[in-house]
């Protein structure tokens, strides 16, 4: 039915639609700073045409749907890169700490203790009978062993801290996956009627981004609007309204009450970073430090064992523990595991400087040959194993021929290279994530100017509609005045 009443109806509808549009705009403005918020837009459609005596007359506007300016590609890429970024982040902080602990930048770390240890042997060789030189040597050796134990304990402490982080991280992950399943349920229910649950989706995306901070994941949205989350290796974390928990069990991690260890299937994110640190990077440094301490113990002890003390006796060791070494048969212990954490002066020499074997034969306190022999260790290459730890495979080692000093220098160099690699990785990922966020914001973010313009647009439409109603009113009044 055409006519004034029809116009009035169209305008009533139009005013309601413009009000709704203003509401959407105000929702955008209100959420300008909400993290994870995706800009929403009201889609307007004209009403179906009414056929009126061969004339097609429009019937006004209607609000079709409120859509999100959502960029699926940017969002998924951000999820992936976030995992990489937070993996680097977790490693970066530990590596920074490790480098500070090793403290080799100003040459006051283990290197210096080692140098002073060798120098003390040098001083002793200049006066092999001197009690002062002997006492200084014992002091320097004690400092060296303390330095070893300090480093080792820091590594152990760092390792147990990683275990604590992992427990907390997994707990957080489980909470997050559970929240995602809740939202899955709500979104499926809300969207069953055909509308889009925009704000719920925003919340869910924010949660998924938090999950990807913890570990690398893949997501798949199903037709009903629920999302499936798996780890990068394909292990399900969320499926519809069911979530699967990851539970730490000692060093292992178990999936959903299963008894198999699934650590190797977790990578990326903070959890991946912590696992790398705890199960590969830190144990590797500990093993290599053990190797250094063990080789030092063996090499020094072997020479010392065969040397002669001030009172003419032999068979004294210098360092403890004696890791199953047979000095007379020249057989080093099969493993030096734990040597760096236990290295100390042996009971033979501790507090008994006379028992330092500086001589090669009895009958002369001026005999410095054994001190010279031990001093030669500083420049002599020895066979020493270098360990490599990788997650998912057994530790492997290769024998290298290096001086003890060079071996440690190599360890510090490796630490520096790893640190540099991680710093660079972090820089790259951080600026990448920043750019991706910018890309996503260029689509999904709220621009206040734009919203202000929209607001004015809708306002004007609203005012125009009121004007039309006023005119209709005049028209009706004119009609009423016909007598």
């Amino acid at each position, binding site marked *: 039915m055409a006519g004034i009443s029809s116009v009035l109806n169209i305008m009533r509808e139009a005013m309601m639609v413009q009000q709704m549009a203003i509401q959407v705009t105000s929702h955008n403005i209100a959420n300008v700073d909400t993290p994870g918020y995706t800009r929403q837009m009201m889609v307007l459609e004209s009403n179906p045409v009414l056929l009126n005596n061969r004339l097609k007359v429009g019937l006004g506007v209607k609000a079709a749907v409120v859509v999100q300016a959502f960029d699926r590609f940017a969002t998924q890429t951000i999820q992936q890169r976030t995992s990489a970024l937070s993996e680097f982040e977790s490693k970066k902080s530990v590596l920074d700490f490790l480098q500070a602990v090793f403290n080799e930048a*100003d040459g006051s770390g283990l290197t210096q203790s080692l140098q002073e240890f060798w120098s003390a042997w040098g001083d002793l*060789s200049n006066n092999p*009978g001197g009690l002062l030189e002997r006492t200084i040597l014992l002091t320097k050796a004690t400092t060296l062993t303390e330095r070893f134990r300090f480093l080792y304990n820091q590594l152990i402490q760092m390792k147990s801290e990683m275990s604590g982080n992992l427990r907390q991280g997994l707990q957080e992950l489980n909470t997050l996956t559970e929240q995602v399943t809740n939202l899955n349920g709500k979104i499926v229910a809300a969207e069953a009627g055909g509308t889009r649950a925009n704000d719920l989706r925003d919340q869910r995306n924010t949660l998924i981004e938090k999950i990807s901070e913890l570990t690398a994941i893949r997501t798949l949205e199903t037709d009903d609007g629920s999302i499936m989350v798996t780890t990068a290796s394909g292990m399900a974390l969320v499926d519809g309204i069911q979530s699967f928990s990851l539970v730490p069990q000692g060093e292992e991690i178990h999936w959903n009450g299963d008894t198999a260890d699934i650590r190797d299937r977790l990578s990326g994110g903070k959890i991946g970073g912590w696992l790398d640190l705890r199960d590969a990077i830190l144990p590797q440094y500990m093993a290599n430090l053990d190797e250094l301490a063990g080789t030092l113990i063996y090499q020094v002890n072997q020479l010392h064992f065969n040397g002669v003390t001030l009172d003419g006796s032999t068979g004294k060791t210098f360092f403890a523990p004696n890791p199953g070494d047979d000095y007379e048969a020249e057989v080093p212990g099969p493993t030096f595991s734990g040597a760096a954490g236990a290295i100390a002066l042996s009971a033979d020499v501790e507090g008994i400087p006379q028992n330092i074997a500086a001589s090669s034969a009895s009958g*002369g306190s001026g005999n410095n040959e054994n001190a010279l022999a031990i001093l030669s260790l500083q420049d002599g290459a020895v066979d020493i194993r270098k360990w490599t730890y990788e997650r998912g495979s057994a530790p492997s080692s290769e024998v290298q021929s290096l001086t003890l000093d060079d071996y440690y220098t190599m360890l510090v160099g490796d630490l*520096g290279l790893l640190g*540099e690699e991680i*710093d660079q990785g972090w820089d790259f990922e951080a600026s990448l994530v920043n750019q991706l966020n910018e890309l996503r914001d260029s689509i999904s973010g*709220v621009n206040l100017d734009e919203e*202000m313009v929209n607001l004015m647009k809708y306002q004007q439409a609203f005012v125009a509609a009121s004007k039309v109603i006023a005119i209709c009113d005049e028209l009706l009044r004119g009609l009423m005045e016909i007598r």
Partner: protein
Amino acid sequence: MRISNRAIYRNINFHLSNLTEQLKNIQERIATERRINKPSDDPIGTTQALRLRKVLSQIDQYGKNIEGGSSWLKVTDTALDAIGQLVSRAKEIASLMSTGGTSESEREAAVRSVQGLLDQLVQIGNTKLNGRYIFSGYRDDTPAYTDDLTIRSSSADPGNNPAYTGQATSSGTYTGLYGKQYVVEITTGGAVGVARYRVSENGGETWGPADAFETSTSPTEVYNSTDLGVRIAFTDSGTLTPGDRFFIEVSRYQGDSEKIRIVTGASSRVEMNLTGTEVFGQAGSDLFDVLTELKNALETNDTAGVRACLSPLVQFQSNLTGYRGEVGNRLERMETYKKILSDFDLQHTNRLDEITGVDLSQLAVLLQLKQTLYESALYSASRILSLNSTDLLR
């Protein structure tokens, strides 16, 4: 490109925090005066720096060793000089007294002088440096020379037959005037009590008759021509074989013939000491024996004996000159080492500085630059943030 407000804030934050971090790094470098503050700042530089520091600390150690060696050599040189003067004095006395026609009182005075020289010689022989006797070899905690001749404990020939597992012990009270090197050689094999031996008094140059003495578990004679009270006892264990040798030295020397080496470089060891045997000579013909001989000859007015002392004294004098030259050479070598080391030290310190040090003026300029950048970033941020369409659109 659409720019959302969130993007503006994030960008401002991201870049400002980046600049802050760079400022912090520059500041850290300036404050520590180090380019490398953790190994990852420059891993290769770090390992180079570690190696250089090791080398520097070794250079330091070598320097200390050389310093110690030099003072040892200087003390040795002083001692050699004193001995040289002493020998000259002895030579003077000998040549003065060898002409004959000297009075009793002159001879007595000469005897006293020689006795004084002998006492002085023991003192010089026992020169100490930092509590170490420099002429004692490895036995640096024992005075090199005693005032009297002493029978040293016997030692077996290094190439001795292992069939004899016992030990030979020397004993007795020496009644001779001069040092001697007795050698006991088994000439008839067998167990102790059966085996017999002969004796040399001059280290094996000349021998007494074979089978002169029977081995015994109680002290038995050891002499060739005259019994001077030296005895040897064998413990009964194993069989003695002809050719087995045992040495008994009668001397004032208590040191050994070992050379003390010091480290002057990664693979260079330098002998530092002269032993008493080198400087003063072998027992039996050492400087003490010559002076004792001189003294005895003077006491008995044996002019020929006095004259006979002249040529060994001349020999000693030339030996001493040789040793002084040797010590001088070593000292010079030490000086050269020291110079090389200080060059090395300078080079390595410079290298280390290049690797780890900072160029402060460059950093100051960089800091200024970053500071300006930071300030302009803040300024532009404040300008952008204050732009607001709500003020303009009405």
